[in-house]
């Protein structure tokens, strides 16, 4: 960008998003890595196509986690401080399977998120929204024998992030997931249904396939609420080590 150019507006970013989406109607299920509307990706995406390889034995296995690694209390993000965090208390739960529907059992799930005001308890987050002394926003859990995970947390707020002028991230929870083997390792973000910021967000929109986008949306589920205490969302995860298109060309 020339030195004196005005900052990008939401309108210009949205126009870039629309033009890339039109060119990728039949793209794969994953994000494009070369996605200029997300400005930080410009110098950080590979330009060569990925090389196809037959995985070796070590890559068809993955790290093992167990009771030594995770404390059961790590899954309750509202119980890490003396007081209750501010915000909408909620349960987030779902089942993790592989592409054939087999449960991913006993595997590690890690989450991190902003607080209800949209502020991370991280030294580099300069958004002038309040920190919550009762909320750090980080949790861990192991899936059970049938692939289920369950966290108790509060609903994160949206926040501005300076990708362009007045850029706002939709509310999201970061998820780090291990599959049955090393090739299925995924880090992603869970979003909330109906969030008006989703169409404007270059990170969410880097997935040109709308069915792929839908797979990142949780569903409100009254059946997983804790009555008179918390709301509840369900989000199921499928780990396949997806193949993808990396570049726009």
């Amino acid at each position: 960008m020339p030195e004196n150019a005005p900052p990008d507006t939401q309108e210009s970013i949205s126009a870039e998003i629309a033009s890339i989406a039109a060119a990728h109607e039949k793209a794969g299920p994953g994000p494009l890595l070369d996605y200029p509307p997300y400005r930080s990706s410009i110098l950080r995406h590979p330009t060569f196509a990925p090389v196809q390889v037959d995985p070796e034995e070590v890559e068809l296995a993955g790290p093992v986690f167990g009771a030594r690694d995770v404390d059961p209390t790590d899954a309750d993000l509202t119980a890490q401080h003396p007081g209750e965090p501010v915000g909408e208390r909620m349960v987030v739960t779902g089942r993790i399977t592989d592409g054939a529907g087999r449960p991913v059992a006993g595997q590690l799930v890690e989450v991190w998120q902003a607080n209800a005001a949209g502020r991370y308890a991280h030294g580099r987050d300069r958004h002038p929204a309040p920190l919550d002394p009762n909320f750090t926003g980080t949790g861990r859990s192991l899936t059970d024998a049938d692939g289920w995970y369950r966290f108790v947390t509060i609903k994160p707020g949206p926040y501005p992030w300076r990708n362009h002028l007045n850029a706002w991230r939709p509310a999201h929870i970061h998820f780090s997931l291990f599959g049955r083997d090393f090739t299925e390792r995924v880090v992603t973000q869970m979003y909330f249904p109906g969030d008006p910021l989703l169409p404007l967000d270059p990170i969410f929109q880097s997935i040109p396939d709308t069915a792929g986008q839908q797979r990142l949306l949780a569903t409100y589920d009254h059946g997983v609420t804790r009555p008179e205490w918390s709301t509840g969302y369900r989000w199921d995860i499928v780990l396949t080590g997806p193949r993808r298109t990396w570049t726009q060309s």
Partner: protein
Amino acid sequence: MTDPTPGTPGQTVGPFFGLSLPYAGGPELVPPGSAGAIRLHGQVLDGVGEPVPDALLELWQAGPDGAVVREPGSLNRDGWTFTGWGRAATDNAGHWSFSTLRPGPGRPGAAPFFALTVFARGLLDRLRTRIYLPESESSLAADPLLSALPAERRATLVATAEPDGYVFDVVLQGDRETVFLESRP
């Protein structure tokens, strides 16, 4: 063969993964200085050669005997159990470092390697690659992946030996771009 159910897409790890993912002992698969310990380290660099200070690397490897490790305890290391897995964030200079053991070959004559996963702010999904050990030229020459690559691309997957281990840079973009991998369908 295609998977019957499409997978959940990835998204960038973002700038604030430091809240949750790095942990004490993450880069130390074995205690530094212990018997057989080596240092595996390098930088993560972007398309103009600038260091990437907000990347996260995960290492997964066989033991020195070439066998796949099936031991829990990576997040809460006891100092004695080799779990085969570790995690290291880059520092302000884009530098990362693991203390680990040399992996053995997965089958007789195979070229030993470390499997590596790369995450970073600005990287919309994780990248996978391999770090091959440089010593056994005959096994490197026979490796199905390496032998199919042009020489300059192949060189991006082979570590450089140092007195105490190996150095390996992850180059996300450009002339020296690391070869990144996807599993064949």
